[in-house]
């Protein structure tokens, strides 16, 4: 057998130094990152072959001709959820070694040479015949509407997806209710087919692209400007594949996940939420939306906008959140394994002492529910938001929302907004989180900050928003007393000197600490070095 697709990754295979971080790392204290044994599959199956290091060793042996592809090999190949937690954790190359893509490349190679798992054939055939992997009648795709009329043309398309159409219809119903409540002008595709995600994940790339071509033609016929999905898998497929295809063709179609759109609508005051009863909610980041799509904060901002709700984080969260176990074809190929992985994730939700587990993917919801054994309620975020819609819509928020309060930490964004020169050296779209903690111990223990906002470098200066940035380069952390001194600075020079002093010579009440989410080399190249030098952080006078 030949493996042309996998061979494209030979350089990456060679870059693996087999450090084992992808399987074993627990960086909760040693790096203050929410990383704990990243590979959800390895954590359940136990053996090295199931984590990224083991997979890389095996794939290298395969290319060297030491291993043959047989049924057992195929079973192994389809145990990876391609969740990319290994990639996120890997520091060997910028962005991490892309083991999920290597796995998918190998799946493509084996499929192209006629090797496949029987169950995948029925999924493939169902997706071709009925345009959904479940094999449900295509004619039933819009049944969740229960006869409701939808405009034929609109600025926004709601791409429903197969799971909300056939298995989690309340996700589709809730999405429609939310969009209507916010007076969003939306339509559905006249003839929506599966987005192709399942085919791509299983290795049927050519068939996947055929399916996509149909959807692209459908989308074009609507003349819409925005496509929104309530399924994280569809979102990734559109964002990853369709948008790239369309960019080549010059289209301006904007792809959003429903949480991004609702976040924007809520910010404009077009929709508001209030909990029916007090809830302690934790949020599971779907891999397709988080690691593959880069969306972590929109869902969290939405949950925090629901009055009467406390959002608590699980031990692993955001870019290091454990996978639910369903993705990459694992749920269809090995449902027991998927359930076991889900049970582990449910354990994290219980450990966080939450009473409601929300996610933003109907497939994650299905799997987490299967793994929950009734120990915790699991819902999709749109279901929860739809039942928490408030009759009274809030006022639109200003850009510097945090700057209207009376506390010193509220003064900080206002000060920074009036001193954009502090950020002038940074490349466009650089992002920083600013968080205030009562004490260094509170920060060190990973407790919830008093206040968080983020700053993005823009063409016109800076933009400040509440909450964390989706992918901050640096997370800066301050005490209230530090901020009091900083906001009294007359100019950048004074601000930088104080900043450096609080970092280099911290006291119990005045300190600055930071977590770097990119390598120091990368940060210096992005322009952070100049300020750090002025602050005396990179060198002292």
């Amino acid at each position, binding site marked *: 057998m030949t493996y042309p697709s996998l061979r494209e990754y030979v350089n990456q295979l*060679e*870059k*693996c*130094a*087999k*450090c*084992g*971080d992808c*399987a*074993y*790392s*627990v*960086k*909760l*204290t*040693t*790096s*203050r990152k929410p990383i704990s044994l990243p590979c959800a599959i390895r954590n359940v*199956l*136990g*053996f*090295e*072959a199931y984590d990224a*290091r*083991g*997979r890389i*060793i*095996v794939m290298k*042996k395969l290319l060297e001709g*030491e*291993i043959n592809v047989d049924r*057992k*090999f195929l079973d*192994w190949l389809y145990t990876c959820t391609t969740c990319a937690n290994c990639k996120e954790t*890997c*520091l*060997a*190359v*910028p962005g991490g070694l892309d083991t999920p893509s290597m796995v998918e490349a190998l799946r493509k190679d084996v499929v192209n040479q006629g090797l496949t798992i029987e169950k995948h054939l029925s999924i493939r055939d169902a997706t071709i015949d009925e345009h959904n992997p479940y094999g449900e009648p295509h004619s039933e795709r819009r049944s969740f509407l229960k006869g409701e009329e939808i405009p034929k043309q609109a600025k926004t398309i709601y791409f429903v997806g197969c799971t909300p159409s056939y298995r989690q219809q309340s996700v589709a119903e809730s999405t429609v209710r939310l969009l209507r409540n916010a007076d969003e002008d939306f339509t559905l595709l006249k003839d929506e087919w599966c987005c192709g995600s399942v085919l791509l994940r299983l290795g049927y790339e050519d068939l996947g692209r055929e399916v996509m071509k149909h959807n692209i033609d459908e989308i074009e016929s609507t003349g819409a400007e925005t496509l929104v999905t309530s399924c994280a898998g569809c979102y990734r497929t559109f964002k990853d594949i369709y948008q790239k295809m369309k960019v080549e063709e010059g289209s301006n179609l904007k792809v959003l996940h429903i949480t991004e759109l609702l976040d924007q609508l809520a910010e404009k005051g077009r929709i508001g939420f209030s909990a029916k009863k007090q809830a302690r909610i934790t949020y599971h980041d779907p891999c397709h939306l988080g690691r593959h799509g880069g969306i972590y904060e929109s869902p969290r901002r939405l949950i925090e906008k629901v009055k009467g709700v406390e959002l608590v984080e699980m031990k692993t969260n955001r870019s290091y959140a454990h996978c639910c176990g369903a993705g990459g074809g694992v749920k269809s190929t090995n449902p027991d394994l998927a359930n076991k992985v889900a049970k582990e994730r449910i354990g994290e939700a219980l450990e966080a002492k939450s009473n409601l587990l929300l996610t933003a993917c109907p497939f994650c919801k299905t799997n987490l529910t299967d793994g929950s054994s009734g120990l915790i309620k699991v819902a999709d975020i749109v279901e929860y938001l739809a039942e928490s819609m408030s009759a009274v819509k809030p006022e639109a928020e200003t850009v510097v929302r945090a700057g209207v309060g009376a506390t010193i930490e509220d003064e900080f964004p206002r000060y920074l907004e009036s001193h954009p020169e502090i950020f002038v050296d940074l490349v466009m779209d650089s992002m920083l989180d600013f968080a205030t903690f009562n004490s260094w111990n509170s920060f060190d223990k990973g407790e919830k900050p008093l206040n968080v906002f983020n700053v993005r470098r823009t063409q016109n200066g800076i933009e400040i928003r509440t909450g964390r940035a989706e992918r901050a380069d640096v997370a800066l952390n301050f005490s209230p007393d530090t901020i009091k001194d900083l906001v009294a600075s007359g100019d950048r020079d004074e601000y930088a000197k104080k900043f*450096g002093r609080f*970092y*280099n010579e911290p006291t*119990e009440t005045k300190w600055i600490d930071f977590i*770097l989410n990119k*390598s*120091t*080399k990368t940060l*210096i190249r992005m322009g952070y*070095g100049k300020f*750090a*030098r002025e602050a*005396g*952080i*990179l*060198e*002292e006078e």
Partner: protein
Amino acid sequence: MTVSKGIYDELESIVGSSNISNDEVILYSYSEDSSPFPAQKPAVVVRVSETSEVAEIMKIANRMKFPVVPAGGRSSISGAPIPRVPGAIMLDLTNMDKVKEVDEDTMTVTVQCGIRWAQLIHELNLKGYKLGFRGPYGGNAGTVGGSLSVNTVGCGASKWGGACNSVLSLELVLPTGEVIKTGSGWSPIAKRFARYATFNDLTGIFLGDHGTLGVKTEATLKIYPLPKGLAYADYGFTSLSNCVNAFHELQKLGIPEEINMLGDKTSIGLLAETYLESLPEIECAFAVVIEEIDSAIAERKKAICDEVAKKYGGKALGSFLTRALWLDMFNMTQPLFDSGFWFNTCHIRPISTLRETIEDAQALFRKEKVNEKGMKWIISALGVDRCFCTCWITLFEGDRSKHADLERVWGKLKEMELESGGVPYWTGQLWEPHVLPRVNQGFYSVLKRIKSVVDPNSILHPSTFGL
């Protein structure tokens, strides 16, 4: 040698079907560590959770004379934990990762030896304690048992010594399946609080044994209160000689929790490029971490570091590098992988010999034109214990077509380091070909006799150390 169905079934009855495998993909995935050295794939991999399981497995292996290779996170860069002979039972100890007891009376922690250092640090941190030695730089995956088996030196070693210096007692499963506890653990009722007690220091026989004498199942380590005073400082120097002298003086004073030196511009370029841009005159640098129970003590010690560095013409560079590395512990080396696979020559030596060794290495690199051959290198040193240092000179293979050149330079470097009085702390396949021809025969003869007594059938990690 293959594991027969009968033996497989026996092993399976001990650990359960989900913890044993002889599938090809699984066996191959255990056939490498983080080194470039070749290995045999094991015949079977067994994941153990309890000491009693290890003991039962060893009894079977001893009866059948099956080779056994114990392994932790296999982040070793010396080729130590991978099988040298075919047909081995590989014991995957990473599931033995529990903290058994934190004893606040005697300030000790007893752990199962498969626990990763980063996990242990996290669990102790939650209780308000820290370790002395924190783990190797690969401490995300590196296990306590692995480090104790290969004399690892790494984070925190400047004040506390290497991994083995932290040990008070071990629980071991011998090749014959007997379980023993060392130190004060000889007493069935005493706590494991002291290493040197009543009899010979049996603990020391097993430390650094590369898994050849016993399977380490539990270790009792010293713990300390979390620090309340922290200080960090980077210093740059225009001459290697001044840098080493300042480094030596600080290590003699016993101030640093960790003092880590980058020995030339190339090395600074790999880890702290920014200093070269802003301070082109700097030839080498070191980073100092200070941890104390009180902030006033930490501040005073930092001031002493400033004075010592200044005496040798050092320039204070702030604290960014030190903090970035110390507060992101165990993530320093991974970004270096982008420069190519690593070929290390990690060893220890007196600090007084460091300058000459570095200069000799640089001369070798110039002579061999390693830059032109696409190789990169990093030269670094860590203060260790009282009062020596590691010397870490590592080559990165940027261009695989020049592998033969790299092998030649790497071999010369290792020889040169041994000839100038260096000694490896870990051995593995990395150093064995260089140290075995040099070892004192009387010493080696005792080592062989100990092996033959403790492991009469020579089943534990055969061929390691040439035994």
